[in-house]
């Protein structure tokens, strides 16, 4: 139900009744068809009829029904009747053998055509021949029978009625035309139609005039451009709406909820003076693990945790000097002050291709590209872990990684930066717990207090080990973190199953709230 058609009007309310009475008062003969009233008043036909029935019962108006023929195109309708086509094909010859007709007309059964050619009076049948009459001569010259005129008119209009035909070219016997077409269903369909007219009774007229005197203007529902252009709106009264009724819902186009959280996180880091970086999803083990001092036999690198690729299988390493320094640091710590992992580093493991397991692959590439302080870099992107799907796990998810290359970088400033970030994202408080990651030392786990969810683990952070930074030529300390994003979104949008973020229910997307 929309506001234009309030439910309580469906049975013909007094309001519509009054409008109909007032409208009829201004019509010639106080009479109008229902269709005209629908058009003029902008009120639904069912409502007008409902009101009319009530008004009739009260003796205020009469409902008159007029039956007429409505003509529409039949299945095989063509602009020219088949006998006209035949007439023209036979051409100027006065006589024609009926036996020759199938060939001339390109049809097997010519009985019907012969019938119509004679019925129209264009030919007379003499034994096995047709002989053209004078009328036939005129027809060939262009004279049209009334049924032909009607068929021709149907090319312009989808339907015709005798009522309409009376306004067409004079001198045509329309009734004869209709009579000729009756029975030729396949060419022109003729249907009985009823038109309803409403006419005020004497009593109705009196009441309408009285009401008009009290309330001179008729009431309308829809303000039309015509009313405004003609100034007619001054003469009408606008119907009062029930403004409490429900209306049809509308939904704006909008961003995905997860995307909105991504946009907020981006804004938060951009506000804090970070530059944004990116890196390929298909990554070499070198940038995903080796450059981060993850030993080549580290459990995280194993097949059960990381997606490796079969096509393509291996990539290229960066410049040799960098690779050599990284390799040496793994093997014995090189000049980093570390004893290293004490094993033989294998180039073949470093060229293996995989789906990046963290966006730290992006920040470490950024660090390698320009390791000079001061720099703040972040990356938000898809990462992949070899996990089966359930309510809290997906094989791919979004991570927010960041690094700060700064002489004054410390655990305390790491905590400060991340606390500021989560405050911007709506967390009340942030806490840190000791943890262990292969590429940071010290390492912490980050927890944020997210409203009714309480304390939620958001990810890991720490100070990059010198085994990570020194081979890349970085002279200062580097802070680093890798944080989850889905959890923030799940909290914000009340999602309990992470899968619902990616297998979207459009209704949920439509309803998801913009504000927290």
């Amino acid at each position, binding site marked *: 139900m929309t506001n234009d058609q309030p439910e309580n009007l469906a049975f013909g309310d007094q309001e519509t009744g009054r409008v109909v009475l007032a409208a009829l008062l201004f019509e010639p003969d106080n009479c109008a068809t229902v269709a005209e009233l629908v058009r003029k008043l902008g009120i639904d036909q069912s409502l007008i009829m409902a009101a009319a029935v009530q008004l009739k019962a009260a003796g205020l108006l009469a409902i008159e029904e007029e039956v007429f023929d409505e003509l529409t195109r039949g299945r095989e309708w063509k602009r020219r009747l088949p006998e006209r086509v035949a007439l023209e094909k036979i051409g100027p010859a006065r006589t024609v053998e009926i036996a020759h007709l199938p060939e001339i007309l390109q049809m097997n059964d010519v009985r019907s055509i012969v019938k119509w050619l004679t019925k129209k009076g264009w030919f007379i049948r003499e034994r096995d021949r047709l002989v053209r009459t004078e009328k036939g001569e005129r027809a060939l010259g262009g004279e049209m029978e009334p049924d032909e005129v009607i068929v021709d008119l149907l090319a312009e209009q989808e339907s015709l009625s005798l009522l309409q035909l009376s306004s067409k070219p004079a001198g045509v016997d329309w009734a004869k035309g209709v009579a000729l077409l009756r029975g030729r269903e396949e060419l022109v369909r003729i249907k009985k139609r009823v038109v309803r007219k409403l006419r005020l009774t004497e009593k109705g007229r009196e009441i309408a005039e009285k009401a008009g005197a009290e309330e001179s203007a008729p009431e309308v529902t829809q303000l039309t451009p015509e009313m405004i252009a003609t100034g007619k709106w001054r003469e009408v009264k606008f119907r009062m709406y029930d403004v409490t009724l429900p209306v049809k819902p509308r939904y704006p186009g909008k961003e995905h909820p997860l995307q909105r959280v991504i946009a907020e996180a981006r804004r938060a880091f951009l506000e804090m003076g970070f530059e944004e970086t990116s890196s390929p999803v298909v990554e070499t083990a070198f940038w995903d693990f080796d450059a981060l001092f993850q030993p080549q036999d580290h*459990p995280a690198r194993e097949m059960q945790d990381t*997606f490796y*690729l079969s096509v393509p299988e291996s990539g290229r390493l960066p410049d040799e000097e960098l690779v050599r320094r990284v390799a040496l640091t793994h093997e014995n710590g090189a000049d980093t002050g570390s004893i290293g992992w004490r094993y033989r580093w294998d180039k073949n493991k470093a060229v293996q291709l995989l789906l990046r397991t963290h966006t730290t692959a992006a920040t470490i590439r950024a660090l390698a590209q320009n390791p000079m302080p001061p720099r703040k870099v972040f990356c938000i992107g898809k990462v992949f872990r070899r996990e089966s799907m359930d309510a809290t796990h997906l094989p*791919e998810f979004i991570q927010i990684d960041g690094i700060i290359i700064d002489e004054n970088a410390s*655990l305390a*400033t790491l905590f400060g930066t991340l606390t500021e970030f989560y405050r911007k994202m709506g967390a009340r408080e942030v806490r840190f717990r000791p943890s262990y990651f292969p590429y940071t030392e010290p390492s912490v786990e980050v927890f944020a207090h997210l409203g009714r969810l309480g304390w939620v683990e958001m990810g890991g952070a720490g100070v990059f080990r010198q085994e990570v930074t020194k081979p890349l030529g970085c002279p200062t300390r580097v802070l680093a973190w890798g944080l989850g994003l889905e959890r923030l979104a799940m909290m914000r949008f009340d999602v309990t199953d992470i899968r619902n973020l990616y297998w979207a*229910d*459009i209704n949920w997307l439509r309803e998801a709230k913009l504000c927290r």
Partner: protein
Amino acid sequence: MPVVSIPAPLLNRLIGSQLTVDELNQVLTELGCDVEGWDAQTLTFRINLLPARPDMFDVCGLARCIKGYLGIETGIPKFNFTDSGVRLTVKNGLEDVRPYICAAVVRNLRLNEELLKLLMDLQENLHWGLGRDRRRASIGIYDLSKVEPEFFYQPVAPSDIRFVPLGGEKPLTPKELLTLHPKGQAYQHLLQGFSVYPLLTDRAGRVLSLPPIINSENTKVTPATKELFIDVTGPEEWAIKKTLFILAAAFSDLGALVQTVKIEFPQGKSWITPDMKPEDFDLDSAEATSVIGTPITNGEMVRLLRRMRYDATVDEKHAKIRVSVPAYRADIMHPWDVVEDVAIAYGLHRLQPRLLPTATTSQPSPIEELAQLCRRTMTGLGFIEIMSLNLSSPEAQFDRLGIAEDQRTVYLKNPVSIEQRILRRHLLAGILETFSLNSTLALPQNIFEIGDVFQVDPGAETGAFQERCLALGMADAKIGFAEIKSVLEALAREMDWQFTFIPHQQMPFLPGRCALVQAQNKRTCGILGEVHPQILERYGLTVPVALAEIEIETLFRIP
């Protein structure tokens, strides 16, 4: 990560305290343990192992840390290991196979089922954490009373000897073991390609074990065992020694007497293990405080270090702290590893978070900014954004859409499911799947996605080409080519792209109602069309759908 069960009563007994479950949980967490749960039935904590801290894999190691952290007993724990008099001789021929071995003897052992289980768990977890699944270190534990010292670590030909493996009944040769026994099958790769295998025997020629595969049945440890012989083998000495130290420290903490074994190598080299001598190094205390970001005096730092079970003295002259690291710590590779312990002892919650004073300017990624502009335009046109997964399958990406697969798809080597074994090539499948999932909901449905698609690129550093794309879909009773084209043109107008539409014929589109999108430099950068009803049927869709996809990154890079 493996999970270990830690019995709280035993933990309290080893600490010498009566901490409540909450107090224990709190202190474990403050030490960086990842406590996963508490089982009130068995009174055990379930703790996720920290790969970096094998010395915290067992209840003894945890108790050692907690005692220090709480100040009950600080500094390096004292271990008094005596000489067992047992010798182990390493014979020629294992240099390339598995050259290193260390060993210890344990006496005065009072085992029970619980302790035996804890020891077995520790052994398994050390195999995982330090041993890297037995590659770097493999442990053998034997009932000493069932063998006769001295011991020999020697090469053996694959079929030269037979012994009954642990838990087995029939004697097998090493070769048979590797192919027939489950443990042999699991670890045979560690001996693959060698003509001889390592074998540990006693004076009488009894087999103790075939490292790193399996022990013999007749040296099996039971709850009645009072004396143990332990060996650790591996390709280098660091990991095997650390493994042995952690085991020795655990037995010592349990009140057993640990004794050393002398190992003699072929070229006259020998060592006595376990040698719990700490490693010393200098800690730059100024650097340590600046990493942490709060001033800590040298005296305070020494106290903090001792609480983390280091010994430490201040070297005033050089403004350094002399730190001794207990032998069982396997994670101290760099001075900052010690700095982390200082921070933990100091208390992370006591650190005052603050922002860096350095000013830097922000710099958004151009591609992300472009994506945001496209997103704004699409939402302005009334479209709802969806996000689908990057992982997909050839069935979803090609077969269902009637597209022929070429050779340029990125395939995973080890997928978890067949639905997710390639990286997607286009975004259209995600749009159609979303319509399919939502086929009963109100129309019109106008959706879009901005995401990456992938293909093999042999010239690229990472072997693959990644491209940011935009796909859009419209579903309604009266949707067709004209509608989607008009949306695409609206987007192009906003973004100042000049599109030419080239008639094209390709599934999943209806012939004559599909076009390629050409950019101003004549490069093809997209496709659009009305979806073939044959495809709609496959997705269970009963309304017309029109789709388009364009490569926005390519368009962005046109000069």
